[in-house]
């Protein structure tokens, strides 16, 4: 799933490990999200949403089309 995680993380000077610890997953999981090898669960997407202070669809591109949030 396309996303802005890497850019958002870089803006905050967080490493993959930092972000992983903040949302309770491994560095490998963050890397897999950034490289589109893993689609997040709804639970993880909401954790990331809270961590970045952004709606989920400002972080992850809706693969099914446009939404009112974008």
């Amino acid at each position, binding site marked *: 799933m396309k996303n802005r995680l890497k850019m958002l993380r870089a803006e905050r000077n967080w490493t993959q490990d930092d972000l992983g610890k903040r*949302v*309770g*997953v*491994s560095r490998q*999981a963050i890397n897999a999200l950034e490289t589109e090898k*893993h*689609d997040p669960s709804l*639970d*993880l997407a909401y954790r990331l949403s809270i961590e970045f202070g952004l709606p989920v669809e400002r972080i992850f591109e809706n693969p099914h089309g446009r939404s009112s949030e974008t």
Partner: protein
Amino acid sequence: MTTVTHSTTTPARKYHIRTALFMSGYVAVNLAAILDAFDDMKSPATWVFSLVVAAPVVGQIWALLAWMRDSDEFVRGLAAKRFIAAAGLAMAIASAWGFMELYADAPHISAAMIYPLFWAAFGIVSPFIHTTR
């Protein structure tokens, strides 16, 4: 649901420790059997002994499933895909060999070999499965 592990020991480290313990027992008891330590054993003790030999295998499978349970969703998803693919490959090979024994006089191989076969299959499929999608 995302799992947050509060223990200081990571799921991977727990898995490695548990695997080392179970496999040590497995190797020790099989080595003793190869060295004829149990040759004088009679039934029903042989049945019990066989289950004792199998117990570390059950333990190691538990360790693997516990690692998957305690890991985050990416590690769990990746391991589950690899586990399923490896189990399928191992079952396919074991079934094919079984029929070759039945119909083509292939040499008999113990059913106990399914476990090392599963891990060999796990090693074969893992490089090809690197996403959870």
